[in-house]
């Protein structure tokens, strides 16, 4: 499973794992959106601790979830980001949208 979600109305955490690319992000996106649309948590945490690779599809993943959370006043936090993933995220300026914690 590329994503495991811990549901909570205050803080919902999505544990991502493996390689995030255009192929895997479609499924991850669907799983997260289905959960947060229903639950509308105050905060969504995207946990990248077990992510071994990410390309710009991961940017779309974070930005899209940011927009969705924003639509009902929720926040997004990103954590466990590797050096490679951070490089991709910085390129997109995601560090300006969400709080990012590195590995």
């Amino acid at each position: 499973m590329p994503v495991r979600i811990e549901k909570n109305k205050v803080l919902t955490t999505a544990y991502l794992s493996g390689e995030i690319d255009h192929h895997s992000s479609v499924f991850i996106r669907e799983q997260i959106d289905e959960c947060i649309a229903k639950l509308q948590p105050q905060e969504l945490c995207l946990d990248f601790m077990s992510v071994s690779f990410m390309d710009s599809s991961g940017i779309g993943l974070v930005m899209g979830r940011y927009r969705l959370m924003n639509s009902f006043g929720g926040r997004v936090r990103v954590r466990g980001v590797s050096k490679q993933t951070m490089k991709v995220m910085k390129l997109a300026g995601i560090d300006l949208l969400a709080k990012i914690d590195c590995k």
Partner: protein
Amino acid sequence: MKANNEMRLTLESRSVNEGFARSAVSAFVAQLDPTVEEISDIKTAVSEAVTNCIVHAYKNSVDRIYIWVGIFPESVVKIRIRDRGCGIEDIKKAMAPLYTTLPDERAGLGFAVMQSFCDDIKVRSTEGKGTTVTLIKKINSR
């Protein structure tokens, strides 16, 4: 200039092949003893180029993606990723950061990632005929 070593790979434009494409290219480049960061850079850039072939060039069909990798003197790697898809109408516009024709799912950063993770990138495209992206990166062997 002739390459010291080269490889070719042809694969179908199915998204499940994205991981295989970047792994295969990085495994070939491994003979230059790159750093972990250099390998990540190459994997990421290749992933972007191959994804472009799948989501843009062949958006309504499954067709072939042609990858060639050449290793040149002084550890210079050239990676050519070619498709026979729809082509790009305006390359300059397509390469601009955040420009995308698929705003709901794509960030529009594919070319920006390729540019920033490689030393040089060349894009040639003919509408209706296809696109060739060449990525160039020097490996500073340890």
